[in-house]
């Protein structure tokens, strides 16, 4: 598949969501010369991975993850904007306020494509909430200026409920970059990949098996 995009905006709530979810796709766009901006909702302040062995604690984690996020965006060569919400609280904030906040940013950047989580199929409440707010934000933009939205579903039942995703990106050519991006999130990489397959310590093998392609549903407004 090949796409011609003007600018791509990625909207996820946590530092590392971009790495696990879309870093292959982002790399593909960057190699085509397409500018990419990551709007990262929180600093993952309430994450429970503290490194293994632990090197962070609840109070140092926000700064640790902020630095990891900045490093990961350097690896991906994307622009980063941190939105300043707090981890685990996005679903309790006003949906309307977050949508207006995002709408303002999207109207300034004028992307042709927005990538976010598929609300109701994104497992983590922050993913569902920010995905819903992002889609609401795009919906509020006039149709002639409205970017496309690719929504990412990670729930166990998304294939049964939503069918096959219409966008499937083979990221094997970009796997090395994806791994570099994941590993930039030093405090999270081992714990997240390890929990996907507790049988082995070979996190690169886990990543290859579990993260070999990146799939999205084009949102139908």
């Amino acid at each position, binding site marked *: 598949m090949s796409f011609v995009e003007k600018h791509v905006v990625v909207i996820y709530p946590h530092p590392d969501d971009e790495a696990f979810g879309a870093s292959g796709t982002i790399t593909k766009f960057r190699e085509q010369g397409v500018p990419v901006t990551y709007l990262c909702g929180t600093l993952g302040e*309430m994450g*429970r*991975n*503290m*490194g*293994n*062995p*632990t090197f962070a*604690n*609840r*109070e*140092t984690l*926000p700064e640790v993850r902020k630095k990891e996020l900045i490093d990961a965006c350097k690896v991906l060569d994307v622009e980063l904007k941190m939105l300043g919400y*707090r981890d*685990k609280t996005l679903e309790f904030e006003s949906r309307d306020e977050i949508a207006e906040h995002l709408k303002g940013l999207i109207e300034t950047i004028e992307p042709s494509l927005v990538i976010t989580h598929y609300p109701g199929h994104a*497992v*983590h*409440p*922050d993913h569902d909430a920010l995905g819903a707010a992002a889609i609401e934000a795009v919906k509020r933009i006039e149709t002639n200026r409205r970017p496309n939205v690719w929504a990412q579903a990670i*729930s*166990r039942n998304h294939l049964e409920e939503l069918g096959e995703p219409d966008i499937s990106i083979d990221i094997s050519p970009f796997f090395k970059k994806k791994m570099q991006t994941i590993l930039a999130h030093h405090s999270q990489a*081992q*714990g997240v990949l*390890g*929990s*996907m397959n507790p049988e082995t310590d070979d996190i690169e093998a886990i990543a290859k098996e579990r993260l070999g392609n990146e799939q999205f549903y084009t949102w139908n407004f």
Partner: protein
Amino acid sequence: MEQITIDQVQKQLERFLNKDVYVHLETTNGAYASHNNDKAYNVGAFIRNAQVNYKHAKIVGSGNAFRVGLKLDIGWIYAEGLSQYEVDDNDRLLMAGHDREGRLMVALEISETPFTY
């Protein structure tokens, strides 16, 4: 953070006796517990910057599993599963328990100034 020893942490807990302090208390098994294992449940709770004043404090336990109780005028603060502690640069007492992979399961933190919210 380092391994809890009762003597060290008891001293630290007593440093805040009869003072207005801010508490962060949390337990979690992560947002993906039931996603990664369909027999598991997602359970978690946190309270950040609860303002309290405790009159009595005690740490009990051994090995890698300690409990802390803080006695308030009209109630208690309790945490189980603590194994590590640290007094950070802001003189705050941070206590936590982690699983084998270093993931936080429980935290109890006490400070004379509010935690960053």
